[in-house]
């Protein structure tokens, strides 16, 4: 596979026009969603905290473009991108952030717990590394039932140093479970650089320790992500897990309270030259898949969809106070 840095014009893709549009729209929706949420937080219009995915969109969208609705994912505290890519409804996502009854979790979960089991989404997660064993268990169900499904387990460069990573990948490898462990290396666990947190540069070498394939890729190149996950998907169905480390970057802080003291403006700006959204746009334009006007139209529509989601959320009712005590136990 050709290596892609910066401009994307030369990459070949067999993806249909409809598929490319869907992928581009999901990146745009994620970007617009996150920018709106950042605005809300900056104005104190919603409470709690949130972790935004701006800059990392190609990883979630490129990976999940390989999945069906009934394939599973586990997500992270930085989960809005995975969630939009998995096809969850923008209105109900925004309603959850505003703590509304119509939100995915009826206002009980917030940003870090959005999920929809019916769409194969096993939840964002407030615990770093918390979703890794859960993805492993989902893959165990798939294997025990003999289903034709895969699991993608998203986690970050922070989580790769949690014990759950080691325990889960080892177990999945021993049991040959159909799960792709996809590490999004956005370079920082909160403020701590991955280079300070480990003594290795390429995190994918850890795969060797488990006897599974490992691959480091450009997580800002949506086609490289897509193609790697496509290969990994076929591999894991027959052979057991696969580790992918997607190199990417978040432009915004770890959470709303981040003053960005641990990195330089130059570094952030350097990564902005590798922004996944313009890269995909250049590809779509240069290959004449869409006209500039069509692409502008998509960008306008994405922003409008988010405005509509905000309207939906604002007009939704708050949870019934009596609902505080429900949903602790299943019948």
């Amino acid at each position, binding site marked *: 596979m050709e290596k892609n840095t910066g401009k994307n014009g030369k990459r070949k893709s067999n993806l249909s026009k409809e598929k490319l549009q869907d992928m581009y729209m999901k990146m745009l929706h994620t970007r617009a969603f996150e920018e709106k949420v950042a605005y809300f937080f900056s104005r104190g219009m919603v409470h709690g905290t949130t972790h935004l995915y701006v800059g990392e969109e190609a990883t979630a969208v490129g990976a999940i473009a390989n999945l069906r609705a009934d394939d599973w994912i586990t997500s992270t505290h930085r989960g809005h991108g995975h969630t939009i890519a998995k096809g969850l409804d923008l209105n109900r996502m925004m309603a959850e952030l505003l703590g509304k009854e119509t939100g*995915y979790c009826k206002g*009980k979960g917030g940003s870090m*717990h959005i999920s929809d089991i019916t769409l194969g989404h096993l939840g964002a997660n407030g615990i770093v590394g918390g979703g890794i064993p859960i993805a*492993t*268990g*989902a893959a165990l169900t798939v294997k025990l039932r003999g289903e034709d499904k895969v699991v993608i387990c998203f986690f970050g460069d922070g989580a790769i140093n949690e014990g759950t990573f080691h325990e*889960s990948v080892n177990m999945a490898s021993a049991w040959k479970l159909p799960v792709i462990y996809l590490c999004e290396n956005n370079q920082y666990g909160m403020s701590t650089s991955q280079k300070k947190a480990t003594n290795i540069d390429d995190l994918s070498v850890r795969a060797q320790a488990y006897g599974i394939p490992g691959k480091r890729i450009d997580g800002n190149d949506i086609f490289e992500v897509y193609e790697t996950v496509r290969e990994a998907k076929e591999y894991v169905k027959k052979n057991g897990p696969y580790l992918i480390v997607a190199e990417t970057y978040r432009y915004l802080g770890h959470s709303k309270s981040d003053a960005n003291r641990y990195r330089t403006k130059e570094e952030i700006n350097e990564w902005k030259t590798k922004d996944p959204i313009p890269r995909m746009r250049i590809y779509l334009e240069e290959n004449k898949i869409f006209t500039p006007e069509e692409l502008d139209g998509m960008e306008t529509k994405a922003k409008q969809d988010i405005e509509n989601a905000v309207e939906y959320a604002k007009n939704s009712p708050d949870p019934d106070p009596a609902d505080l005590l429900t949903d*602790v136990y299943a019948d």
Partner: protein
Amino acid sequence: MSQREITYAKAINEAMSEEMRRDKEIFFMGEDIGIYGGAFGVSVGMIEEFGETRVRDTPISEAAIIGAAAGAAATGSRPIAEIQFSDFISIGIDQLGNQAAKMRYMFGGRAQVPMVVRAPIGSGTGAAAQHSQSQEAWYCHIPGLKVVTPSTPYDAKGLLKSAIRDNNPVVFLEQKLLYRKKGLVPDEEYTIPLCKGEIKREGTDLSIISWGRMVPMVLEVAEKLAKEKKCEIEVIDPRTLMPLDKQIIIDSVKKTGKAMIVHEAVLTGGYGGEIAAVIADSEAFFHLDAPIRRVGGFDVPIPYNPELERNAVPTPERIEANIRELLQ
């Protein structure tokens, strides 16, 4: 109804095996549960019947065992996970307390996590501080979990079958000193509902609320005092600690006017405090004619030396002394 005498361990084995025959979504995983039969021999013979796909020996990875059970349960399986000693649940506590227990509520009621974590608890085996604890109160403090601990083979079988059929994460705590104790179970299939206590002995002078291996100990003391015509003690075993059958406790204390809680766990922060509060918060308070008494383990790690170990937790002598004091 015909009955047989089986051990507590065999009762647990039968409960799992019967349920696995009934429902193909149930599988069982844990450390050394296959050919070895589990550290306490509970699962002997199961791998021969169900094969290594449904009886899965795991790596020594408690977080992955509990977390994979949660993930499997959320996606439609019904796992039973054995943790070799309940003390080791602490290695996977995030997966139990932050993931499995909370998933349903966090997701707005749109998930269910039907799993059982089975683990032996308690002292008395000379295994010292990291293999002998009774930490039931930890799990009772996490909404979303159910916590069950049986005191007889009959209860163990009936409650475990219900725990496996329950659509919530259930922590099923087995009393390791009871594993070899025998008791009668019916030949016919039966279940015992969760969240329902049982009066193990009727009495009029004092209600003792106790669970696990303390129940046979309390019953022995009660029989002795009855023979001596000292008193008639009512013994209540809640069996499920969370959610708790409060009414059976309140009704008993209203009848006897005196309450004592006996548990093996260390006293401070133990679940006995919660039960004392349930009594004090209820109409039973107005029937009390003595302070509520708690008898628990001393606030020390479980020691190694056999005499030290025996005395770290309630003994028949200490229970009897407390009863005599309370009834004076």
